[in-house]
Each structure stands twice: as C-alpha cells, then as structure tokens.
C-alpha cells in the first residue's frame, strides 16, 4: 500500500502523460472497442498502446505488485479510466483479460497460476478471450455442452463456442466446459484457462452487423490441455463464471478500459454544436435540450452511484444493487444516447463509415450499432433485470 498516494497529483501526472504520449492516428480505421478488433494491424497497434501504458505504470495499477501491478489504493484505476476517456485515447486491447480473466484468476487461482498468467496479461504479451456462450447456450448458459474429458494428465476438449471476441488473436481463453455429463446443469461445469495456440482448435470469423470483424466462433476437436489448466476445482465452474460476470457487470472498477456515458455525452454535445435543422441549431430546440438534460441526470446519477457504492453505510439496505445494475444501466444509456445522436443528424445520420460527407465519419452510427454488443453480451439486459429482481429485490424466479 502506497501511504503517500495523492489522487490529485496522480490525476495530473496521468493527464500529462496521456497528452504527451497519445498515439498518432493510424492510416486505418480503429475499432471503437475491443469487440471489433478485426485486422492484424489494428491488433498490433492496440497491443503496442497497452504495452506502452503498462510500461508507464497505468495498467492494472490496483493489482498486487507481486503479480506485476502497482498495489495502488482503490480509486487510482478510476482516475486512469476517467483520464483515458477524457483524452479520448484508444482502449486497452486485453480488456477481457483485465475485466474478466485477471480478476477471476486473482481471486480463485493458485499461486502458480497467478504468477504464470497475470504479468503477461497486464503487459498485453498474452491476450485473452472468453469461451462461455455456445450456439445452444446463450442466456441459458448452464445448458452448455462443450465437454472436458480427463485423459491421464490431460483434459480433452470437444465442443463449440460462439461470440468469441478476439478469438482469432488470443493466446488463452477462459473456458467453461462440462466435466461431468451425468450431473445436471450447474454442478457439472468446470472453468479452464485454455491455451488457444494448440492443435485441434479452429477459429472461424463471424461478421457483425457493422461488418466489422473481431467476432468468432471457436471449434474444439480433441484439444488436449494439461491438468493445471483447471481453475479452482472440477464442478466449481458455475460459481467462478458467476464471479467473472459480476466483475464485468460493475465490479470491474480497477480493470481499466472504456469511457463512461459522461464523456460520451460531453463529446456529443460538443459535436452537436455543428448540427442544424431547418437552418437552426439543433441545440436551440427545447425538446432536444430536455432530452440532453435527462441524459445528463442519468449519467451523473450513475457516476455518483459508483462513488456511493464505496460508502458501506449508504448501500447497507441493498448491498448488491449498485454493482449489479451498473452494466445494465450504462449500456442502455449508451444505446439511447447514440441513437439520439443518429437522430439529431437528420439525413446525415443515414450515412455510413467511409462516406466522405458523413458527420464524424459516422462514429455515432457505428457506436449505436455496436451498443447492442453491450446490451446483449455479458448477460442480456433482460437476464440482468431477472437477476436484479431475484437477487436484490428477492422476487421469485422467473420460469
């Protein structure tokens, strides 16, 4: 623990570093998030950026120093996240590692696993992807069918994973597979840290509605991996998967990556000054102004909810409400805001990336289409409302 941590000084230092080290824009289109890293040049550009940030001490900074972090106090990562969003610099490539795999390994991994996997994850030397969903197991994740069979000192994997972001570049996958086919649903599932660069794995691209790449399906056919690829115990996979998803759904404070709705709103208002309708600035329209104020209220409410979540006495009534609602609410705000940004452009909102006349190179249209990746991925909004209703409000389960 760094006793002398000064948040204001740290913020200024971070701001200064980002201003001085912001990468020059490449001559290709950069993806808006890790969900759309399609080409090798995008991948290498972003990997280089994370390496540089890590070397400067801005990645995994709240993570334990013995595993490559900096052990800075809680809140330090939030400052970096806010400054990165403010500076509008590229995101961290290894977002799945930082938000999901890393925190799960830190909590449930053996000492050897933590030492083996965490440092290269932070440095973007090893990239992670996630293998939870299957063609027949989406929101109903526990119905997954991928098998992990013990064979001597190995596990042998057979199955089919989908929606695998970064699957074509990844070195490892957090993989859910069934170790016990006799046990129904949850109890037979185990959690693996599966190597991807091994024989028997076939990664096939899926094309998103934006026509961007980065989305895959992964087929496992007799893939062998060592026994120590297992995280936790056999049969503990469901518990670990729930933990992983809870990191993603809000507790991922400290993982880095991603600007909040606040930065998005501020950026949009700045850009909307150039938009007009019937010769009048759209920002003069009282209806538009009312909508923007509503977004601002929700955005501030979420920003202060993150802070309130750190005050135990103020969340004592429902301790899990704020962490569990964060992803749900943020993703829906971002979707409505980017939709509104499309609407306010009028006809210009019908142009797409590549058209020289498109407003902001159709960034807002692309954000809007991509926003569905977040309201669907990592637990759909509908499933999350079930979870909040059941776990926080105590309502009976939905069938």
């Amino acid at each position, binding site marked *: 623990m760094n006793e002398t941590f000064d948040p204001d000084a740290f913020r200024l230092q971070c701001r200064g570093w980002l201003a001085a080290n912001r990468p020059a824009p490449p001559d290709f289109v950069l993806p808006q998030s890790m969900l759309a890293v399609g080409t090798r040049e995008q991948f290498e550009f972003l990997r280089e950026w994370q390496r540089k940030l890590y070397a400067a001490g801005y990645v995994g900074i709240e993570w334990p120093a013995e595993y490559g972090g900096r052990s800075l106090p809680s809140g330090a990562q939030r400052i970096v996240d806010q400054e990165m969003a403010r500076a509008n610099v590229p995101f961290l490539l290894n977002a799945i590692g930082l938000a999901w795999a890393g925190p799960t390994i830190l909590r449930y991994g053996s000492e050897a696993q933590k030492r083996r996997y965490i440092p290269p994850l932070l440095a973007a030397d090893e990239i992670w992807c996630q293998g939870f969903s299957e063609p027949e197991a989406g929101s109903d994740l526990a119905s997954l069918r991928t098998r992990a069979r013990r064979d001597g000192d190995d596990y042998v994997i057979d199955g089919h994973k989908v929606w695998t972001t970064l699957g074509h570049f990844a070195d490892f996958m957090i993989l859910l597979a069934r170790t016990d086919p006799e046990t129904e649903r949850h109890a037979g599932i185990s959690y693996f840290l599966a190597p991807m660069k091994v024989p028997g794995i076939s990664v096939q691209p899926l094309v998103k509605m934006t026509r961007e790449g980065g989305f895959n399906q992964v087929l496992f056919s007799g893939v062998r991996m060592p026994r120590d690829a297992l995280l936790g115990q056999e049969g503990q996979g469901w518990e670990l998967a729930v933990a992983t998803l809870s990191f993603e759904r809000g507790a991922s404070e400290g993982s880095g990556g991603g600007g909040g709705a606040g930065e998005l709103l501020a950026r949009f208002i700045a850009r909307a000054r150039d938009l007009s309708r019937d010769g009048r600035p759209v920002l003069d329209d009282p209806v538009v102004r009312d909508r923007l104020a509503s977004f*601002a209220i929700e955005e501030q409410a979420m920003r202060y*909810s993150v802070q*309130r979540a750190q005050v135990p006495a*103020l969340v004592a009534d429902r301790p899990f*409400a704020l962490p569990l609602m964060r992803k749900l609410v943020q993703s829906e705000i971002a979707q409505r805001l980017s939709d509104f940004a499309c609407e306010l452009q009028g006809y210009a909102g019908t142009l797409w990336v590549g058209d020289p006349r498109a407003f902001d190179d159709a960034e807002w249209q692309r954000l809007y289409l991509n926003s569905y990746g977040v309201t669907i991925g990592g637990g759909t909004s509908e499933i999350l409302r079930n979870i909040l*209703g059941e776990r926080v409000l105590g*309502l*009976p389960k*939905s069938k």
Partner: protein
Amino acid sequence: MVSIRYEDEHALLRDEARRWLAEHHSMEYVRRVAEDGRDDGTTWAALQQLGWHSLTIPTTFGGAGLGMTHAAVLLEESGRHLLTAPLLPVLLGALVIERCGSDEQRARFLGEVVRKGRIATLAHVEPSGGWTVEATSVRRENGRLRGEKWYVWNAQSADLFLVPFREGSNGATQVAVVPATADGVEIQAETGLDPTRRSGRLVLRDVSVADADVLTASVNQLHDLLPRACVWLAAEMAGGADALLSMTTAYAATRVQFGRPIGSFQAVKHPLVNVLIGVEQLRSLVYAAASAIDAEAPEAELLARMAKAHASDVYVFAASRAVQFHGGFGFTYDCDAHFYLKRAHASRPAFGDGAYHRQWIAQHLVGA
C-alpha cells in the same frame, strides 16, 4: 467531482429515525390523520423532544447546528413513513430565517422555533402557480402587505408565515415574517389531493409589517435557498419511492395468480427493477447534492436540481407501478399505495418539476 460524505453519525441518526418512525408513525396513524383532516400535534411535540425540528438551526440559536446531509437522512426516513408533522416545512422555514435574517432576527424567530416549537412555514407560491423570486406579486405599500399566497404547507397549524413580497410596484423581492394572528391575515383551507400533507391559502389584507419583521436578505441569498429546498424535498421523495418499492415487491412476492407469485412474471419483475434503478440513482444524487452543498462545491446547484428533477419522475413512476401491481386491491382506499401516489403528485411541482429543472440543466450543459 464531489465526495459523498456519509459518516457513522449519519447512519446512527438514520437508525434512530427508523426505529422511532416504525414505532410511532404507522400507516394506521397516517390514515387517521388523513381522515380526521388534521394532525393532533402529538407527533410534532414528540419530534421537538427528539430535536428534529431544530436539527439544522445553528447552535448559537439553540439548534443542533447539523448539515444538509443530516437533514436529508431524517427526511428520507420521514418520506418513507409519509410523516404528517411539518418537519420539512419547518426545516425550510428555519433555513429561510437563518440565511436571510439579521442576527437580531435570527435570534428572535429561530428562538421561537427552537424553544416554543413555533411552526414557521414558507408561503411563496402565487395564485398563478408561480413560485420563483421573480414571480412574486404580493406587495407592501406604506408598510402594509397585500396579496395572496396559495399552496402553503401546514397553513392551518402554522404560527409564522415567511412571505416573499415586493416593496411597492417594482421593488426587489424580500421576505416578511407574518404571524398567523396578525390583523388582516386570513387562512383558508385547501382541499388537497394529498391528505397527508395539508396546505392552505394565505390571504393578506393590508397586514401591517414593520421593517424589523422583513428579513434583510439580498435576492442572491433567496436564490441560494432553492438548491437546499430541492435536496431536502428530493430526499423525502426518495424515501417515499423506496417505501413503495418495498411494499410492491413484498406484495408481488406473495400474491399468487396462475399458480405462481406475480413477481415471478417478468411483466411485473422488470418494471419493478426499473423502479429500483430509479430509486438507487435518486439516492446517489440526493447524497451527492447534500454533500456538495455542505462542501460549498460549485456543482451543488446542478446536483440539487438533478436530484429534484429525478425525484419528480421516479416517485410518480414508483407510485404508479405500486398501484398497478397491487391490482384491484391497488385501486381501493384500503391499499396504502394511493397515499404515496398523492404525495408524489403533490411533491412534483414544489420547487420545480422535472421539465422545469431540465431547462436550467440544459442551459448549464449547452449554454443559452
């Protein structure tokens, strides 16, 4: 970004308020007050014993001298129980005197509130519904006050009215302290939608007001009151909305139709989660705004207005879902939900509804 300050002392105050209200302020009591048409004053007397009425009055004048957050804590709990006693009106009235009066006026009027339990209430809403400093139409000419104020909380039981007025036809707005017993004061009961918080009309017919009874505040000091009023009312509304959420959730978990509790249907569950989200967001805004005001942070007014805007929408939404999800029972007088629905509607225009504040917020975000 403001730091939300909420310490052990706030949590202790909340627990104390919860205990007291649960024991002494049941819904049966609220129903009795609603049906009798008046509060018998015993609750108010008890609250004075607890010191709630003078919580934020400076210690120099005999109060506890505590901050916005302390009051927000009490008001959130009060809102949960639809407190019928005039806690919010008196905290606001005392605030007006404290921030707008001279030392002599504070000592005199706050002393009456603290020691004699006098009810001081703000009478700021014009018959037109205008309520801002600029909207003031009550006039003082030759030392005599003339005009009407409507929608005055606890008008019938109030001892002192705090009345914004203009000197002559075009003077700046100031605040007069008018005793209910003064010659020319008539108080007319309003038949209100919300029977748990009574209001009335104050008719002023050439009421003599000496300069010593006119608070010395500047217009800016009057403007400073709005964020505080917004936060306190929003805190009360957050408590009400939270009570509705608990009540409706409990009902949905036990009411069985089609062989299952109705709360297992997503058509019920998901809107209740939307209420939950609204309530949780609202509480974050309320405590952020209260901390901001206590810290005199520059974003205090923005956060306070956001809190009131959000409260106006969230409370009404929570109440509408409560009535709806209680089904046929929800439509009856026997179900408690309608009392909250009425309080939500009555609270909505007070100190500005959602659209009103969003106009200001947009101005703040975008510029003119």
